[in-house]
């Protein structure tokens, strides 16, 4: 790498960092973040109710880790991360367009792709933190009796990583959608709660066209019984392939979004 290109790369990374800091700060302060925090804490409330009931109930308590794996994680995986990714992913571009604040960003000495990537990274970080807090709290509540069993923490780490990968991937996809479509919400909802759910019931390789397939491939197969209805899936892909596909999808959609954002002309509606 020549000195010039190293310098350019360093400048680009600095721009990314500056945009990231700006939007991380702004996102943290926003009212919507507070509301989404409350929504992402909902599984914690559910976990608390279940745990309190276990304390006062005569019935043999189900293992906390069982409930955690089959309920909490699934609530995040099939619902919450989709909602968070849909809102924040589409907001990367649409927020600046609707608010007419894009001009302030595009008249700074930073590449347009750095604006998009920096904002994407900021929002993804925020929602990963939100999700991680909720998942971790649920884990501690449900496994209150078993906190000294350190093998369980591996499961927590695994689940946090899988949910984070899901957020990274879904947010990149919705960032791309938000870049090409002005009103992307309906498409996003149909994709998240239509395509991602329905396609998994299709035989053969069709299920591999859903991001959810790769995320579920990283989690253990659900045992039959309670909650198994929540984790339906067909043949999973090998974990390494699943991670590779998730990262590939992320890179491809982010790349497309960067190209489109840099090339496209955005005209504000009066």
């Amino acid at each position, binding site marked *: 790498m020549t000195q010039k290109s190293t310098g350019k790369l360093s400048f680009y990374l600095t721009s990314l960092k500056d945009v990231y800091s700006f939007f991380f700060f702004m996102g943290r302060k926003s009212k919507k973040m507070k509301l989404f925090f409350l929504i992402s804490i909902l599984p914690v409330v559910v976990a608390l109710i279940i745990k309190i009931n276990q304390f006062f109930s005569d019935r043999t308590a189900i293992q906390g880790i069982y409930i955690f794996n089959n309920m909490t994680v699934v609530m995040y995986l099939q619902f919450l991360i989709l*909602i968070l990714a849909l809102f924040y992913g589409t907001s990367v571009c649409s927020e600046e367009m609707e608010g007419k604040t894009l001009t302030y960003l595009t008249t700074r000495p930073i590449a347009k792709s750095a604006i998009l990537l920096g904002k994407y990274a900021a929002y993804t970080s925020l929602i990963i933190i939100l999700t991680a807090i909720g998942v971790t709290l649920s884990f501690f509540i449900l496994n209150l009796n078993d906190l000294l069993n350190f093998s369980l923490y591996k499961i927590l780490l695994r689940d946090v990583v899988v949910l984070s990968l899901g957020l990274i991937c879904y947010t990149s996809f919705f960032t791309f959608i938000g870049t090409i479509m002005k009103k992307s919400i309906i498409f996003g909802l149909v994709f998240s709660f239509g395509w991602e759910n329905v396609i998994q019931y299709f035989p053969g390789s069709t299920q591999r066209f859903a991001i959810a397939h790769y995320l579920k491939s990283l989690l253990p197969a659900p045992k039959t019984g309670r909650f198994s209805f929540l984790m339906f899936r067909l043949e999973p892909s090998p974990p390494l392939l699943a991670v590779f596909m998730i990262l590939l999808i992320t890179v491809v959609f982010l790349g497309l979004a960067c190209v489109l954002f840099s090339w496209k002309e955005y005209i504000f509606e009066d």
Partner: protein
Amino acid sequence: MTIKEKGYTHWDGEFQDKKFPWWPITRYGIKLTFRKKFFKLFFPASFLLAVFFLAGIYISERLDDFKSMFGESVPSLQIDPAYFKTYLAGGFLLFIMLIMVIFCGSGLISDDLKHNALQLYFSRPLKKRDYFLGKTAVIVFFLFLLTLVPGFVFIIMKMIFAGSFKFFLSYPWLPLSVIAYSVLVTAFFSFYTLFLSSLNKSRLFVAILIFGIYFGSEILRAIFYENFHNHHFSLLSISANIQQVGAVIFNQKTPYPIHWILSLLVLTAFCILAGFVLKKKVKGVEIVK
């Protein structure tokens, strides 16, 4: 003559209240909804389910012909209140109604908050009641097209296809059930949508809330039920409550073994809460601290 007297004339007549001051709001809201690109695709598609059920009514009158074509394997198709309940209180129609309110309702109040239009509304001879009526009527218009209108079309077409009033005479209360259920579900969705629309200036955020809360409540119900095996957790789910009351309205067995009054109370309580919040949120002047 002093200058003050010149330049404008006083109105000597009596000011008259307009009969339906909320109508321009409704008319404009409906117009705006139809202007959306994707709505033009979605709107006709939303009637497909009704068409499918109407075809079922037709087939029910021509069952012998179909049996002669396809043999005795054609199952019998009974058009009764259960059929109406299956259409009107079914999960699929509720989903379509949800998408419909996202299109027509998510921006109703949030756009006014975003563009500071409330001051413009309330500086006219328009009461808050008229403002809410106007906005609600937009949602009512579209939801009645999916519930009340098809319900009555089914009744009328059944009688036309049968060539007699037998169906109506067998179930004379059915039209009232259709009206009651349509009013119930439309009123709930109107409060639900307007309440969420008043919470934020971003239409995108409101749309996600509308969708998320509806489906989130159903997921919560399923999880709590699986853990506690208690049907009372169905009170947490919006769709479960609507289906519970819908079953009673059509004189059918309720899907959950809990008293339907509880579901009605939950829905009513939500509407009352939404009403309070709406009254507080919709103001002519916003004070920014």
